[in-house]
């Protein structure tokens, strides 16, 4: 590929925006947060990010933002991914490999159903209270 300039990048963005506007958009927004601490990186969070990007593009899903956070304190179940989708419970998924990331896109973000076998149950705050 030829080396792109910032102007090329701006043009590409405008083109993408146009095609996006032509689609029938489901306007509900979603946020995907990937754990990128030392533990997340070591467990392959970068590959998970690539898989999310790729699958979201293939599925043509819009209104999704991908953010990162440091260690969530769940190092043993990395890569961890938190998904907040409008009208759905906020969920933390554990042991998310690239295949699971693609499933989260298709089942959770597109199909609006949780990927149950990867849900990480957060302990209730009243149970862990006072244990700091």
């Amino acid at each position, binding site marked *: *590929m*030829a*080396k*792109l300039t*910032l102007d*090329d*990048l*701006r043009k*590409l*963005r405008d083109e*993408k*925006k146009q095609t*996006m506007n032509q689609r029938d958009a489901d306007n509900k927004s979603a946020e995907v947060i990937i754990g*990128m*601490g*030392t*533990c997340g*990186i*070591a467990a*392959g969070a*970068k590959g998970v*990010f*690539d898989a999310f*990007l790729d699958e*979201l*593009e293939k599925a043509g*899903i*819009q209104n*999704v*933002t*991908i*953010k*990162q956070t*440091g*260690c969530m*304190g769940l*190092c043993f179940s990395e890569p961890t991914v938190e998904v907040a989708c409008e009208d759905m419970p906020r969920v933390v998924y554990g042991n998310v490999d690239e295949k699971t990331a693609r499933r989260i896109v298709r089942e959770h973000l597109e199909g609006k159903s949780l990927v149950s076998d990867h849900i990480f149950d957060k302990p209730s705050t009243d149970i862990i209270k006072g244990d*700091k």
Partner: protein
Amino acid sequence: MHATICDLIMDLVQNSIEANAEAIELILRETGNQIEFSIKDNGKGMSKEVQAKAIDPFYSDGEKHAHRRVGLGLPFLIQTAEATEGRAAIESKEGCGTRIHFCAEAAHVDLPPFGDFASAATLMMSQMNSGELRIVREASGKSYTLSRTELEETLGNLNETQNLMLIKTYIGSQEDNLRKAG
């Protein structure tokens, strides 16, 4: 040890972001048979005592997770340098910032593979919410520079999926050009 050099760099840049840095500069250079990078930030820095402890894998300041007893970011850097007969240096001043430098022989048998820089740089660029992250990348006599604020001015919100894809394509094209002969 991290699986790739890019993973190691991402981890260290994340340290800078978590230290509330407003300006971070990453210089990553491959010259002849050497690979070298430095990360300079104006984050909260470390006192001499914390610096000495930070290289111990069984130390974490406990601010984020009270029960966590490990902190492997800087120990991974030092481990990689030791395994490859390379050099790692950490200079830090409390309240001023931190500078990290790493250099090793590119062909050393124990040096982790380089990794996918386009994807790593996209992650670094979109991880910082405000301030400047400047990346200077040099290889085989060519170079390019990336600036977080410039990308944000061009694209808008860097966390939007569409923009992340565009940044990855953009950086990928810069990397391709760097690797091209001649």
